[in-house]
């Protein structure tokens, strides 16, 4: 069955391009008529962000309301203000937002490392640069989280946590990162700041 009667908007045609500003904005759900394809289109887009966050880090759902709206809507609004690119590192920015939010006291070391692992895994799957690994470090920890792109047909991406005890500096900020062009972690080029 075909549903041409369900209009994109009740009063006029609307193209996807006109919705681009709203695809990442939770408040758009209130502005668009529920009985429209435009509403469904925006809802689908937002659900992708929601699932990308909470499916990978379900512990976040224990921090606030069960639907995660307090965290999701709060972070997305802040992300818009900060002009975040929502790249692979967006999990790390969620951690930064939590650290200055009403949920700051629930942000444990374990949750911080979950967010770091999620970011490293996303980089390993989505980054298309020639670099093969990303290393994430935290000022408050000697543990590094490393994400590796697949280098074998069967292996898939890998994320590992390693302890570093060789006098290497911690990042100056709360988090730092560097990339590697080799599948051997044999050089330390210094920490880079978190990209936006």
């Amino acid at each position, binding site marked *: *069955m*075909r*549903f*041409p009667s*369900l*209009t*994109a908007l009740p009063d006029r*045609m*609307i*193209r*996807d*391009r006109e*919705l*681009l*500003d709203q*695809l*990442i904005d939770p408040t758009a759900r209130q502005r668009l008529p*529920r*009985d429209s*394809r*435009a*509403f*469904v*289109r925006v*809802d*689908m*887009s937002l*659900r*992708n*962000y929601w699932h*990308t966050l909470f499916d990978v880090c379900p512990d976040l759902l224990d921090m606030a309301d069960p639907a995660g709206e307090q965290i999701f809507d709060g972070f997305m609004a802040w992300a818009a203000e900060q*002009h*975040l*690119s*929502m*790249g692979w590192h967006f999990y790390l920015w969620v951690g930064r937002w939590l650290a200055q939010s009403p949920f700051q006291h629930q942000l444990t070391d374990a949750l911080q490392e979950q967010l770091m692992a999620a970011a490293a895994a996303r980089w390993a*799957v*989505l980054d*298309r*640069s*020639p670099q*093969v690994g990303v290393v994430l470090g935290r000022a408050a920890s000697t543990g590094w989280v490393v994400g590796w*792109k*697949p*280098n*074998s*047909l*069967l*292996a*898939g991406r890998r994320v590992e946590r390693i302890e570093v005890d060789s006098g290497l500096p911690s990042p100056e900020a709360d988090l730092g990162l560097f990339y590697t062009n080799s599948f051997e972690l044999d050089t330390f080029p210094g920490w880079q700041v978190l990209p936006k």
Partner: protein
Amino acid sequence: MQIGFNFTLGETTPMVQQLAREGAIDYVELLIDNFLHVPVAEMAAAFDVPVGFHIMFSRFIEVDDATLDTFAAQLKPFIDTLQPLYVSDHIAYFTHQGRALFHLGEIDYQADFERVRERILKWQALLGCQMHVENYPSIVDGSDDAPMFFERLMADTGCGTLFDLSNAVCAWRNGGPSLHAWREVMKQARHFHVSSYNTAFADDRVTVDSHDGLMAADTLAGLRAYRDLMDKPGATLTYERDENIHYDSVLEDLLKLREIYAEVPTCASLP
């Protein structure tokens, strides 16, 4: 018609190898940019059947030239060594004002034509091969312009269309162009996709491309109705499954495709 299966994840390697070994598929479509750090020789040895390349994240319409040059340099050795049946990519927005879209945006087929035309020419030149670009499973309006867009793009750039019939069915169910409007595109295309669709969470009157289960009846009807336009020498049809990847279910759909494209006896072949 050569029937293939999309290979996206390393963990499904044994299943895809089994499908090829048992003759359920004639070729494997590699989501090649997932494997750019796997040694080329390992990829070449992985399957005993030909391969096609599907690119997901080149973002060739919107990235800068240097980024595209670098990506092409990574991809070219795979093309040169594996000699794929085709190389394909996506016509869509991946970002908006610098922000990543987690559900890709549909281009404006009128306003964006020149930009896409220019980038296709650049991308084909860098890779040294024809690019086949996929149509979008439209949800809102504007997709009536899509068939003519792809016809113009093929004529102006020499690219091909990777015609995803189930994407076109999604668009049609959402008020877009009929399959009939795509006749000229189907006639010119040599490479095709098909998969399942589902309903949107917020409203089951909206159809979304899902790749998560068995093909729908109207998708199969579309394949039968336009078989004459699609089935031609060198043609490929890739069955896509990204969720619920279970051997029996995948095989069930592949056998339906085999049935649709079974050889029709001609007078010359009859005893």
